[in-house]
């Protein structure tokens, strides 16, 4: 089961510069919904925002509290509470077999090696993936690799799962299966994606543009506004 947490994320007056260019200047945001989507152009700040939430990036100014943990002060405790799924599973899988990949995360939480191996195998079996325990990850399809990545994160029982464009390397069947899996998660989920259809059943969508919130609210309204802006900008350039 996921760890307990108040399920709330609060960003207060965040400033962040990337490569000496200001990205966020005084951003404030509160998130309590279970399913939240982030949309926006490349470079708008979606990935940076996600990285601020799991402590991979720390704000230059302001505070961020994620499920009761202040990222600047309690950074070391964040991996136990916040799971992160990256764009390319190839970058995330560190070990050659499924069981080792799951066990590594458990060992990072302080579990002894033998116990971590047993728990990893049991966890894979529980998720109908027992066959992956001793399978070389290079033999898995891209969809299966992404599936293994999310299992490796879930094994660490986070209360929040962040996903940074997790579909870019997946075919349609894998994408649909993956979305079904995400929909069934008991954890709070925040996902950035360019595939706007996946947010239809989400509770909230936030459109980020140039480090600022351009629109925030129900998926249908925010996505419609973003689409319209894209259409307008094409019209202006052609």
């Amino acid at each position, binding site marked *: 089961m996921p760890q307990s947490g108040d399920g709330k994320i609060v960003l207060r007056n965040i400033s962040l510069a990337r490569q000496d260019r200001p990205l966020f200047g005084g951003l404030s945001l509160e998130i309590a919904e279970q399913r939240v989507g982030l949309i926006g152009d490349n470079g708008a700040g979606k990935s940076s925002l996600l990285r601020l939430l799991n402590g991979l990036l720390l704000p230059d100014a302001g505070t961020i509290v994620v499920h009761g943990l202040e990222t600047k002060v309690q950074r070391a405790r964040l*991996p*136990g509470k916040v799971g992160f799924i990256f764009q390319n599973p190839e970058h995330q899988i560190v070990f050659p077999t499924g069981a080792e990949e799951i066990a590594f*995360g458990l060992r*990072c939480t302080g579990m002894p090696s033998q116990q971590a191996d047993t728990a990893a195998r049991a966890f894979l079996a529980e998720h109908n993936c027992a066959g992956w325990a*001793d399978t070389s990850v290079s033999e898995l399809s891209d969809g299966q690799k992404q599936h293994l990545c999310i299992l490796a994160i879930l094994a660490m029982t986070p209360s929040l799962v962040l996903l940074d464009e997790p579909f870019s390397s997946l075919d349609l069947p894998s994408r649909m299966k993956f979305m079904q899996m995400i929909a069934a998660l008991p954890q709070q989920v925040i996902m950035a994606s360019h595939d706007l259809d996946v947010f239809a059943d989400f509770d909230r969508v936030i459109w980020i543009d140039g480090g600022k919130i351009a629109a925030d609210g129900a998926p249908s309204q925010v996505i419609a506004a973003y689409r319209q802006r894209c259409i307008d900008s094409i019209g202006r350039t052609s």
Partner: protein
Amino acid sequence: MIAPYLTAKTWLHHVSAGWKLLALAAISIAFTQLTDWRGLLAAAAAVLALYLLTLLGHWSRLRLYTSLLPLLVGIGALQAYASGWEIAIASIARLAAMILLADLVTATTPMLAMMDALSPVLRPLRRIGVDENQVSLAVALVIRFMPVLLNEWTKRSEAWRARTGRRPPLRLLAPFAADVLRLADHVAEALESRGFSIKRSQERNQEENKD
């Protein structure tokens, strides 16, 4: 030689990682002491037999060695020219045997077991401020990411060939190096996001030292 872990179980899979690494080190030292080309050739033949018998049914793995052949031939030719054919045969037999043995260990040892076996050996490095857990993870990462890097190089070469119709030049190494650094960044982020960081590792060590 870096090739993936063999998931089909052989007898060598049941030998502990520590013993395998110890045996590998001992045999490698013995090989450096042997100088007679006949002795080395016989020893290399014995190693090849051990390799083939252990990995029975998985001989296709040997195909991975084709990329090494030009290197072995080059070294042999250089040695034959400089020091004579006896020394050339001795060098090639020694090198080939050590590569095959190392591959046997990588093929039959899970990475986490290898890391666990290496960590105590590397522990004295702590005295000079080096964390053994990170060194053993670095070894594991090299083994895991070598096929990924080879794949990246193939993609770069294909893109070059598609645009020029020629073999990729050496200067393609510069963008490839940039790819490697980018990959390293991604992997570091992935490790950190799962709680493996320099600071945490050091904190763990301090806690262990207190115990």
